[in-house]
């Protein structure tokens, strides 16, 4: 990491162009953004959107995945739609979302939720399907049935796979959100990127990129790495 920063600094010294600011300039831009609040406000706005959209995506995706795994009717009717939608980058829905909801939070949330919920649903479907049959049969012989069987046995058994989907869903949510914020202006990190471009402020653009990378890494370390360790301790395998 330190070596990369040194190489970056050396390269920008050699290039000597405002188009390739060095780490010092980018660091100054971050500091300035924090001081005048623009960067922090944008970070808070984006994170709040991300979390809200992601939670909705989980609440939709997990039950959808369960229904896909357990109901032939749902699988045959909704299944192809899910696969079809899943292959479309969710940002493609932004124009339609804007026509429906105008330039509002709803439009951007639709894109985030669509982007994140489908990988969650597909992963949930697969992992619920691949729960070892003897696990569920054992639970049934002990008297577990219906929703209770699903909640106390099937979902915990499928958890490593669902967590893998949740992780993919998170990155999809972040990408969809950034694309959405870049395309229409309403606060957030994506908009700040756009501002940097308008002003020709490459240091600001790179500063925002650094913050986005930081956001991704932080969520990785705080959420998913922990969950992975818990899974590994219990299952004796790495989460996917």
């Amino acid at each position: 990491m330190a070596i990369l920063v040194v190489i970056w600094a050396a390269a920008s010294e050699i290039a000597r162009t405002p188009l390739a600011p060095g780490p010092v300039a980018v660091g100054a831009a971050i500091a300035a953004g924090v001081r005048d609040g623009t960067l922090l406000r944008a970070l808070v706005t984006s994170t709040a959107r991300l979390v809200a959209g992601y939670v909705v995506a989980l609440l939709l995706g997990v039950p959808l995945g369960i229904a896909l795994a357990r109901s032939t009717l749902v699988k045959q009717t909704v299944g192809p739609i899910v696969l079809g939608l899943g292959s479309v980058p969710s940002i493609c829905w932004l124009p339609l979302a804007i026509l429906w909801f105008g330039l509002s939070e709803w439009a951007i949330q639709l894109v985030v939720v669509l982007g994140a919920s489908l990988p969650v649903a597909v992963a949930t479907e697969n992992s619920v399907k691949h729960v070892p049959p003897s696990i569920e049969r054992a639970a049934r012989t002990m008297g577990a049935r219906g929703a209770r069987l699903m909640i106390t046995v099937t979902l915990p058994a499928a958890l490593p796979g669902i967590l893998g989907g949740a992780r993919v869903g998170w990155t999809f949510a972040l990408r969809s959100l950034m694309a959405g914020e870049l395309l229409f202006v309403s606060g957030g990190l994506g908009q700040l990127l756009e501002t940097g471009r308008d002003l020709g402020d490459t240091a600001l653009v790179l500063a925002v990129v650094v913050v986005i990378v930081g956001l991704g890494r932080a969520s990785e370390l705080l959420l998913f790495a922990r969950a992975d360790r818990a899974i590994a301790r219990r299952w004796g395998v790495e989460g996917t």
Partner: protein
Amino acid sequence: MFASAKNWLAPAVASDLPVVVVPSARAGSAIALEDVTLRVAAPEGELEILAGASLRIAAGEFVCLLGPSGSGKSTILNLIAGLARPSAGRVLEAGSPVDGPGPDRAVVFQDAALFPWLTLRRNVEFPLELRGLPARARAARSEELLRLVHLWRFHDRYPHELSGGMRQRGAIARALAGDPAVLLMDEPFAALDAQTREILQGELERIWSGTRKTVVFVTHNVREAVRLADRVVLMGTRPGRILHEETVDLPRPRAANDARVAALSNAIARRIASEVEKVAREEADDAWVVPGSRGGGDPRRHLGRGI
């Protein structure tokens, strides 16, 4: 032969068996299969998995179902467990028809099927949690059971941290937790190495002697069946059916290398050899003949004889 009659009615505990403190109240209950048939839909039409099987198992009896793969022995177990329903005939437990799975009939699976996200202790407590038992009662009961199977020291381990034999012992403890009347075991020791299997057979015999649960034990291992059972039910294939029953009136506790166990095992093995060969033939090329097999086989090969 006197021993036979005694075993049949109330299998006696041999006096030299170690005394077990049995954390259980309910004794075994009787099971009856009345002309049970199971058919399932298959690509080539309807397939008969089990054909007209009738079997009576006395309360507290230890019965082994023995046969090659495809003989319907696991099917009988699933029918008693309530995991499958008969196409025809009736399955009765303690006189009433089996209607779905229930905690009075616990199952131990070949792969133990412990829940990987729970510690050993929480696994044993799971059936008690389902029943709404308070935490203190659960804790006391799971400790009792884990001591019974000699796993108390490992109670806070997760299943992946245990060996195959330990997992099976844990599965037995979990099955006993709900105090079932019937213990159904589906090749529980098949995936274990020979030494571990022998130790667990001894433990199972000890636990059974103390609890007087009815045990139905599925295996394809002749020696295991003879070592454990009061009665061995031999099964055949295509369709799965009951061929013959053999009462094992040998004193307990038994050892797998006991000469009488070995002699009876050999006699039974000869009896089912033709069935085993039938399966082997179906799973191999038509022309293949089981090496060293006598009798059975393709009648065309014997056409020259005696002419």
